[in-house]
């Protein structure tokens, strides 16, 4: 099973090049609709990518210290990081040259080769604090192949009359068809998808229980000495900067998928820092052992999500790629995982009023939505390798592939056919 990984690069921009860089990014954005995406597709392992310029005024709240302009690149890819960076600079070196020439210290034209480009990019890598994958183990190639298979099967079912046929007979017919098509031979190899690690979960719960004598006083200290003194977001959506929201909306709902980039200032102090790191550890454990079937805390629309603490843990970036509209995505967060979200994000400045780390916060619907929109920033270039597929489709397609070749009962075969 292949693993999908995140890469985040934070590269300082040359002061004389900011305008030029904005223009290039704008050109890339337009280019993605007319041909540039094919270059990205060529990589064959890239699920999503984004670029944007991070500036001090990208943050809605005052940053911990003055910040230089930095070009942020983020990608979700299959396999090893070295191979990924190698792919980026060999498949489209001219794009990377054009962009990163605007950044500090990029190799001079005569010095550019795969190695120097790679080592330049790698230098600016920042570590991902927590990373969620909606369809773990599924490479881009697998996602595309299984999409083809689903469409192939759909076509057969749609074009034929099945009156009087049992589900098992239909499954057999489908198998014969696929069997006869050498291009679909790959589908016969059953693939594993991760399952919930119950022993790991039980262990985690036990550890949490053992730690309760620390966790409970910690939460009380947070409440009495921190949360009650916080300043909180009391804005409503109508009070946000209209132009800002309109600019964000201009790039939204063009496809069935959207993206979200949020930048935040962490609340100061060790207590907050320890809290957020502990929660990130908790999140990583849950993601690895529990959220492995296409749902992040019950939210069934997220392809990838990532938290990245930067600038010596003073600032945080959050990225996600999701299905459907912004509003649906945020409402899902409130309805299904309000507590988890509150636990993490209440450690950032100006989050809606939170009590005891997990209550209030995201559940304060209007203020939470205003806070989310207010801290979201423009993603200048965004690439998705499969914006026609929802994460539910992707997870379902793997089940279709496996069940096609399984010996099923009539009832199971009926469920299998309903997936198509």
């Amino acid at each position: 099973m292949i693993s999908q990984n995140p890469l985040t690069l934070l590269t300082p921009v040359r002061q004389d090049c900011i305008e030029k860089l904005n223009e290039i990014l704008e050109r890339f954005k337009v280019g993605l609709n007319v041909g540039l995406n094919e270059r990205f597709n060529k990589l064959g392992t890239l699920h999503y990518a984004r670029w944007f310029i991070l500036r001090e005024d990208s943050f809605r709240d005052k940053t911990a210290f003055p910040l230089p302009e930095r070009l942020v690149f983020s990608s979700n890819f299959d396999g090893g990081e070295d191979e990924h960076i190698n792919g980026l600079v060999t498949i489209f070196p001219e794009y990377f040259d054009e962009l990163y020439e605007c950044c500090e210290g990029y190799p001079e034209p005569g010095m550019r080769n795969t190695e120097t480009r790679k080592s330049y990019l790698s230098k600016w890598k920042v570590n991902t604090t927590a990373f969620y994958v909606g369809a773990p183990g599924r490479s881009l190639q697998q996602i595309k192949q299984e999409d083809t298979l689903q469409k192939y099967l759909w076509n057969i079912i749609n074009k034929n009359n099945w009156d009087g046929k049992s589900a098992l007979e239909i499954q057999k017919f489908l198998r014969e068809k696929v069997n006869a098509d050498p291009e679909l031979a790959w589908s016969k190899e059953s693939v594993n998808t991760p399952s919930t690690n119950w022993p790991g979960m039980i262990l985690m719960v036990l550890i949490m229980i053992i730690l309760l004598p620390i966790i409970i006083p910690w939460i009380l200290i947070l409440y009495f000495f921190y949360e009650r003194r916080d300043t909180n977001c009391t804005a409503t959506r109508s009070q946000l900067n209209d132009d800002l929201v309109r600019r964000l909306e201009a790039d939204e709902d063009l496809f069935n998928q959207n993206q979200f980039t949020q930048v935040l200032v962490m609340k100061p102090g060790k207590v907050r820092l320890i809290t957020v790191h502990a929660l990130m550890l908790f999140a990583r454990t849950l993601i690895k052992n529990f959220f492995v079937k296409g749902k992040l805390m019950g939210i069934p629309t997220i392809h990838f999500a990532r938290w990245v603490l930067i600038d010596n843990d003073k600032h945080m970036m959050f990225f996600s790629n999701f299905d459907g509209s912004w509003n649906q995505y945020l409402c899902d967060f409130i309805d299904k995982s309000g507590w988890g979200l509150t636990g993490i994000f209440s450690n950032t400045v100006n989050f809606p009023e939170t009590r005891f780390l997990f209550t209030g916060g995201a559940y304060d619907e209007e203020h939470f939505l205003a806070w989310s929109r207010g801290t979201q920033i423009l993603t200048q270039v965004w690439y998705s390798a499969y914006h026609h597929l929802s994460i539910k489709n992707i997870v379902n397609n793997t089940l279709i592939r496996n069940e096609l070749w399984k010996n099923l009962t009539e009832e199971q075969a009926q469920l299998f056919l309903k997936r198509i």
Partner: protein
Amino acid sequence: MQELELSEIQGFLVRDYKEMPVSKYFLLQIGDASKAKRFIENISKKITTVVDKDEESFINIGFTGIGLSALGLHENNLRAFTREFREGMVTPHRQRLLGDHDSNDPSNWDWGGTKNEGIHLMLMVFNSTQENINTQTQQLRKEFVEYGLKEVFLLNGETFPEGREHFGFRESISQPAIIGSGVTGIQNDNIQPGEFLMGYKNEYNVYPDSPSLINEQGNINMLPDDPIEKGKKDLGRNGTYFVLRQLKEDVNGFWSFLNEKSKNEDGSFNHEESTKLAAKMMGRWPGGAPLVKFPDKDPGILTDDNDFVYTDTDRLGLKCPFGSHVRRTNPRDNFEETGPAESLQLTKKHRIMRRVRSYGEKYTASATQHTPVDEVGILFGCFNADINRQFEFIQYSWANYPKFKQLYADPDPFIGVKENPEPGVVQQFTIPTEAHNKYIDGLKSFVTVKGGAYFFFPSRTVVEYLSTI
């Protein structure tokens, strides 16, 4: 339970005015603000509130964002309204959310679109007979002239026999009931007032975004205090937002398509199957009977039965397909990622109070009869406190979005189909049957938007207050 100030709330939100089968919606433009204020002052005394039930005709009034501005509401006070309302229905992003492209493009609309005159306010009158409403119209038109109001467009609405719209389906069956409004529904339909009224708590147990007065103007003593921002006055309390869209129905296209898709093997029409396919797409039989209760055969009854859920009765969509109009626009207890109780709670956060009238020739279509002479359709209206989370959410995330639930390429067959999908994009309706799924592909759009706008429906007092600004 939150106590509602029923004598402040415009009646159309709570009552459907079914006793008044004819209606006219006057879309007006303000010529002279001070004259218009005198008109509004007069109207504020005649507004039908929830408690006014004995009048000869019912009158309600709504304002657009540009209307409030034309009336003289200070820029900062207008700014306090939600962006959806201020911007109106026609923006590039909102067009994408609502699916207003091709024939639905606002540049093709008869009113409210990019090529039409601006609408400032809407006066809605409801009466018992055509004759009465015509007399009333003559009187009103005199007043419009007197107070410098220009009639930009007139919409004539009616409720048809058996409450059916032109495709032939009984309309407006599934409605929420606002807790405390005096109307009660089945348990699952009882919704917190803040989902429909500003100044009350909603299903999240918080107050919806409500415009407070930023710059003092007019007689502010008339206004209630803002429940959140201390020391400020609230323009929103007991008010709501109204969405209005004129939707033309291609009745002939719809039934011809279904007749074609349900033909017998020998090529002859099978009208029974065609009706069944229509019912599958709707989720109810034309008379209103829900498919989860009558999956196979039209019971031939007229009913407003809304007391049903899906999880226990139809988890696989064998009776009522997941993609059907009623199942996706009100998913009740059946989201696959949450249990029934939690699903019901989620659904409650995306309900609208529908207020629909038909327009055009009085005609009820069926599989065998579907050629009205004139343009026909509905005046789709709905009330909600958060246009973005309610109306727009339902239209985009549940109706237009083809990947609703686990579906792949299924828009709402009535209101979500794109006229010109991108090349290679399939638009289908999936019908689960016991052994496998059946697909109706090549869906066509049979509903065209002809006009639309978002309105603020203030409380009776705030209508009067607006005459003092």
